[in-house]
Every structure is written in structure tokens, then in C-alpha cells.
């Protein structure tokens, strides 16, 4: 069986290389029964990916669910709780690995509404990777809470816009491709972007300051498969697909950390102050998150009639505790894939999954 994977990352990027590895893994795990051809960007853009896989233009994709607030409200609410990783007990360089595990486990085991939503889009959920945390990358110094007042900050989504408004900054909507120029020419003072995009989108060439721990939260990339294609697989091949998905989950999450490390290493040579945000700012941020947790539940209740917000927040907090423990000593993507497989994917009942 020949399947297609439409990725929205550029052809020569590190994530695209991981998609190729996923394709190889599927072929190996299925004993050659199933092959996957990867189309980076040429088949579906991120904006088209959801509808494209729904209609079978491609079989599998990296689905940026944040683009579709209505279609994936449950998933997006869970993704917004990624702000919790900035709390003292979870905060670390590897926190995205823990959140990747937590959200994937929660969606697969504890979120029937998620299953409904993904089914309504004629797709099956194969997991989701979390990017590294979003941090302020600025051309001007931000030392105190007062420094944030009136600063124009590029905000990639609702969480960051809410955060900017609450601290007195001005959230600016700008496509990621324009952000480098926006920073360079001073249209915006800062971007809230993850530490991997710091390198990938060239912000490292123009910003002067990078503040870890502020504003926090992570972006969630889900992997989804056309439901008909999934159901056409034999049970063995479904298992092979899940096994490969565990690897993909781990690979992409891990590659973001590796790219972030490159940025951290290069930053001093570029004369960039790459530091933890000041205590004052971090304290302010953690206070914001503690309150925002309830605000998220309120917003999703009001906009999408989702009642389970605070419940989900509590469950994810607990899962984050478990996953922080499980992932804190991980030193390779292989080891990580093993953990995701053992803890989540191997327990899935392939016969009924995605039905």
C-alpha cells in the first residue's frame, strides 16, 4: 500500500528530514507492506493540510490545528494549557518532551470529544509534538515589567496575544515569514517565538536579546491520517503505523530541542544576550499563568460550549508531573520514542482505534 505524507515544512529543513525517517520506519515496521512518500510543501501547505487529508489529497499530514479554531476547539484548548510547563515544578529545557507525552496520552485515553472532532474531519489522530517554549526575542532590552509597556510584540496565537494585552504590550499579528523583516526594521520590538524558530527563521541575525521563561507556552503539531486510508490498513499495519507515529512524535519534539541548542550555542558569538528573564518578570509570568489557566476554561466554555476545561487542566497538570519524571533524563530521540511507545501507543487497541 502506497501512502502520501504532506508536510508543510520547507524541503531542506530538519523536520522534513524526520518525516523521511518516519516514512522509512513505516516501511520497516510493516515489513515493506506500506510505503510512505513525503511531499514537503509541494502537495499541501499548512493552511490546506486539514481539508487536504480530509478529502484524501494526501493520506497523512502534520496538522496545525490552531488554524482551525472551530474544527478543533478541544485540541486547541488542550494545546493552550501548554502554558503550564512554565510553572516552577515543570519548567526545564526538556519540558516540551513532557508536554508532548501528556497531551498525546490525554487525547488518546481521556478525550472522547477530541475523537468526535477528529472523526468529523474524516481523520484519525496519530499523536502530536510540542515545539520548545515560546520566548521573547527582542531588539530592545526588557528587564522589568514596566519595560513591556507599549512594546509591539508579534503574537503567533491567542495565548500570546492575551499575554501581551495583559502586560500592557501591543500584540501584533504578522505572518512568520514577515517577522524577520518586521524585527529588522523595527515594525515590531519583539517576537514571541519558540527557541528553534530563533534559528530557523533567522531571528538570530537581528535580535539582541532573548528572554527564557517569558511568555511561555508551546505550539502543538498534530499528526493526522485520513480515516479511510487508516481503515484500509490491516491490524498489523495499523500497529506498524502507530509504532512509527511514536517515533515521529519523539523525533519532531526532539529536533526542536536540538535546533534550540544550536541557537543557544551561537547566540553569544552573535552578541546576543540569551538569558533567563529577570525574577520580576518570571514571577509576574507565573502569576499570569495561574490565572490564565482558569481564563482558558472560561473562554472555551463561552466560545465553544466546552464544559470540561478546568477538569482537563487538572488532568494535564497531573500528567505533566508524570511525564516530567519520565522524560527528565532522556538523552536521545530513540529513547524518547521508546517511552512514548511503551506508555501510550502500545496500549492502544488497534482493532477499535479510529472507528
Amino acid at each position, binding site marked *: 500500500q502506497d501512502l502520501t505524507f504532506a508536510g508543510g515544512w520547507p524541503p531542506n529543513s530538519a523536520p522534513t528530514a524526520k518525516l523521511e525517517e518516519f516514512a522509512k520506519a513505516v516501511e520497516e515496521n510493516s515489513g515493506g507492506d506500506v510505503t510512505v512518500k513525503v511531499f514537503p510543501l509541494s502537495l499541501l501547505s499548512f493552511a490546506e493540510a486539514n*481539508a487536504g487529508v480530509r478529502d484524501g489529497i494526501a493520506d497523512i499530514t502534520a496538522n496545525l490545528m*490552531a*488554524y*482551525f*479554531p*472551530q*474544527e478543533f476547539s478541544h485540541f486547541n484548548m488542550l494545546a493552550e494549557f501548554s502554558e503550564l510547563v512554565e510553572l516552577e515544578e515543570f519548567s526545564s529545557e526538556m519540558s516540551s518532551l513532557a508536554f508532548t507525552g501528556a497531551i498525546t496520552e490525554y487525547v488518546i485515553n481521556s478525550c472522547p470529544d477530541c475523537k468526535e472532532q477528529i472523526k468529523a474531519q474524516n481523520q484519525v489522530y496519530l499523536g502530536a509534538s510540542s515545539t520548545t517554549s515560546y520566548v521573547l526575542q527582542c531588539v530592545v532590552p526588557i528587564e522589568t515589567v514596566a519595560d513591556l509597556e*507599549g512594546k*509591539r510584540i508579534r*503574537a503567533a*496565537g*491567542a495565548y500570546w*496575544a*492575551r499575554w501581551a*494585552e495583559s502586560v500592557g504590550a*501591543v*500584540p*501584533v*499579528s*504578522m*505572518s512568520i515569514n514577515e517577522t524577520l523583516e518586521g524585527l529588522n526594521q523595527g*515594525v515590531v520590538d519583539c517576537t514571541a517565538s519558540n527557541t528553534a524558530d530563533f534559528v530557523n527563521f533567522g531571528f538570530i541575525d537581528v535580535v539582541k536579546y532573548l528572554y527564557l521563561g517569558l511568555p511561555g507556552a508551546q505550539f502543538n503539531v498534530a499528526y493526522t491520517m485520513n480515516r479511510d486510508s487508516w481503515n484500509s490498513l490491516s491490524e498489523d499495519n495499523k500497529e506498524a503505523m502507530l509504532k512509527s507515529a511514536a517515533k515521529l512524535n519523539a523525533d519532531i519534539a526532539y529536533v526542536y530541542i536540538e535546533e534550540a541548542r544550536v541557537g543557544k550555542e551561537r547566540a553569544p558569538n552573535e552578541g546576543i544576550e540569551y538569558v533567563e528573564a529577570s525574577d520580576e518578570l518570571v514571577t509576574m509570568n507565573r502569576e499570569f499563568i495561574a490565572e490564565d489557566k482558569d481564563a482558558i476554561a472560561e473562554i472555551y466554555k463561552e*466560545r465553544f460550549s466546552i464544559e470540561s476545561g478546568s477538569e482537563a487542566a487538572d488532568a494535564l497538570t497531573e500528567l505533566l508531573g508524570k511525564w516530567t519524571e519520565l522524560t527528565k533524563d532522556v538523552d536521545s530521540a530513540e529513547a524518547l520514542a521508546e517511552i512514548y511507545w511503551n506508555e501510550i501507543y502500545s496500549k492502544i487497541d488497534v482493532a477499535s482505534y479510529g472507528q
Partner: protein
Amino acid sequence: MFQIGRLLSNLAKLASLLGAICVVLMMLHVTGDVIGRYLFNAPLPGTTVIVAHYYMIVLVFIAIGVAEEKRSHISVDVLTDLLPDRPRNVLSILSGILTVAVVVIIAIGGWTEAVKKTNMGATMEQGSQMIDIWQSYWLLPLGAGLMALIAGYRVITQITGWRNGLSETDINAKFIND
């Protein structure tokens, strides 16, 4: 038949006016956003979403029918100009039929997606706001429908030789931009 042509022509005029208004609104909206952001630290909320999902859709899809009426769609007439009148007219009719078919396909595709987006009540997020976008999906089948009607009507008048009531010449529109 001539009356139908006049009717279509008037519809195209209406579409053209609507589109021209959107061109101006888009200019003012983006300029307002820039001024608000730069001078007052207060960008207009939702600008990029509204520009992309409303103005752009109107500018392209409401206008394809207008471009069809004015014969502004770009084609290559090197070879056909060498042909005698009769085969050239036959080709022109076939090309018109193909145009109708393709535009109907676009309209149907747009329609099915519009139904899905409407049922979903599709929105986009900008900043901390949500903006409805499902309405804009209907502009696509609407505009493609107008183009299909105009192209179809032209084929009929070409075959029958009836006088067509379209206003096809727009001297200024000849300056297509490259």
C-alpha cells in the same frame, strides 16, 4: 437574448462596483492598521484575516466574471490569428465551452466547501479575537457562477450569431500588468 446580455452586463457592473469599493476599503483598512500601530500603538484588530479572507476573495472571485465580460483573461492568440475565420470561430466556441465547464467545476468545488464551512461556523483567530470567515466562502461560488453565466451566454450568441448585449470593450483594461 439581447436582454439577457444586458442583464448579465448589469450584474457584472454591480460586481465591478462592489469590487472597486473593496479595493479602496482594503487600501484604507491596511493604511489605518499601519497608522494605528505606528502612531497610537493600536493596530486595527483582525486586519490580516479580513484582508486575506474577505477583500482578497472579493477582488479575485467577484472580479473573474467582470474580467470575463471585458475579455481580460489572459490567453495566447498567436496561432489562432493565423487561421481563417471559420476554424477560428469554431475554436473560440470550443474554448468558451471549456471555460464554462471549468468555471462550473470551480463553483461546485467552492460550493461544497462553503457548505462545510458554514455548518462548522468556521472562524479564524487573530490576536485574542475570533473572526467569522465562513461567509466569505460563499463569495467564491457566487463569482464563479457569474463568470460561468457570462461565458456560457457568449458561447450561445457565438453559435447562434445573435447580437450580444455585453459591454466587451474596456479600452483602459487592456493594459494588463506585468
